[in-house]
């Protein structure tokens, strides 16, 4: 009996681990735009509700280019780029500060490298053309054939894909 219990417990623990690639452990997110939530991760799936820009959500799962999110009212799927990870939004200073205070937003790198800003205004002003550095940079140049070999080594297969165009109705 005890054993069974343990087995169940282990199974229960393993279950989320098996789906680990999809689970995001309820990460916080913010809606980047007004969007419709779907019941399934497909564009033509039934509507499950909607969210508005700036609304806080809980990211439950990722599947391909879709995220399953939980809002105050409902749960549904939206496209990956409709949600920003983290809780701060553009123009929301307070959220940024809170995120920083909680340690969520920072990567720690900013702090660790303070004082080692490589490209300060002064350094830019003092910048002088460096022939030996540019020559060294040029010495690393790879040919198109080199690039192809490198791609083959990584099993990268070029695909047909037309350049993205600006979405209609946007001020771009």
């Amino acid at each position, binding site marked *: 009996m005890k054993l069974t219990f343990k087995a169940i417990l282990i199974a229960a623990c393993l279950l989320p681990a098996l789906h680990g690639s999809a689970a995001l452990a309820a990460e916080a997110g913010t809606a*980047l*735009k007004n969007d419709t939530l779907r019941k399934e991760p497909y*564009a033509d799936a039934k509507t499950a509700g909607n969210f508005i820009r700036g609304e806080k959500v809980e990211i439950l799962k990722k599947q*391909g*280019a879709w995220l399953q999110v939980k809002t105050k009212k409902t749960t549904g799927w939206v496209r*990956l*780029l*409709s949600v*920003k*990870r*983290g809780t*701060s*939004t*553009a*123009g929301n200073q307070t959220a*940024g*500060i809170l*995120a*920083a205070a909680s340690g*969520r*937003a*920072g*990567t720690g*790198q*900013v702090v660790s*490298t303070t004082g080692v*800003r*490589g*490209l300060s*205004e002064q*350094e*830019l*002003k003092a*910048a*002088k*053309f*460096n*022939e030996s*550095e*540019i020559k060294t*940079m040029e010495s*690393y*140049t*790879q*040919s198109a054939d080199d*690039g*192809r070999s*490198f*791609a083959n080594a*990584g099993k*990268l*297969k*070029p*695909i047909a*894909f037309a*350049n*993205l165009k*600006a979405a209609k109705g*946007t001020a*771009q």
Partner: protein
Amino acid sequence: MKTSTNSDMHSTIMTPKKLLISALLASVFGLSSMPSFAFDLKGVLKEAAEKEFGQSPEAPATDATQPQTTTSGSTASEPSATVKASEPEFNWKNPSKEEEITLGREIAGNLLGAAPLVKDAALQKYVNSVGRWVASQSERPELPWRFAVIESEDINAFAAPGGYIMLTKGLYRKLTNEAQLAGVLGHEIGHVVKKHQLKVLQKQQLLNMGAGFLSSKYAKDNKLVSKAIGTGAEISARSLDKSAEYEADRLGLSYAARAGYEPYGLTEVLQAIGQTNKTDGSVALLFKTHPHPDERLVALGDAIGNKLDNIKSGKTLENRFYQLKN
């Protein structure tokens, strides 16, 4: 290049260094993908502009005032003569590929003067391999594309005309796989393909030459650079910069996708940068002068729509992603 009298121009001469830096900033700040924040663009411009123009840098380049300030002691009283004196002629109206590369080399070489290469040949070769493969998917595969990681903890990337592309070590640190690197390099490649930086320099230069701002003294210092310069004021035209950023985002993602990479690499980097501590002073400038990463994500999302729904074979290649030694 013919000169013409243009009383609408600032009659201004800057020191070669300052002029070059202005030109550099035009390409770097206005158009780079991961702008950094340690550069105080506004500060630099303002200082330069106030010194040179005695007025606000936001003043349009067509302002009719003509301050007489010079920092060099030279004057531009003989415009047609000075331009003719600065041979060889650089065809600013329609630069050749070679001229574009020469110009980019000047800009890149100066940036390297401020931030040298990371001394890690394997890293540099790796970045060149990824970049070259992505560039081969662009509309200008014939350029001699060159890439480099430079010694700076800022988060930034730079593109100079002719295919000179640099990213900072600080930005490289933010990356976790090759698809992300491909997306970032793809964005910069997009700037070069669309000649965004070159166009800014051309516009500025044609304006300057029209007014005869160049002096033979500078031409002696460096014939090309002396012509590849801007007054800085032009840079405050922000609307062009934003559209160029969005365009480069779309191209960068497209090139990386065509190269066989997981297409969302660039958006992951934008997500990461969007989470950078906004309270740090070094980040504030980015959000002030560039489209916020959030806006770039939205714009990309709108452009993508359902176009990536059937692309499932893209690779991230985190296993061979080159790890920095320090």
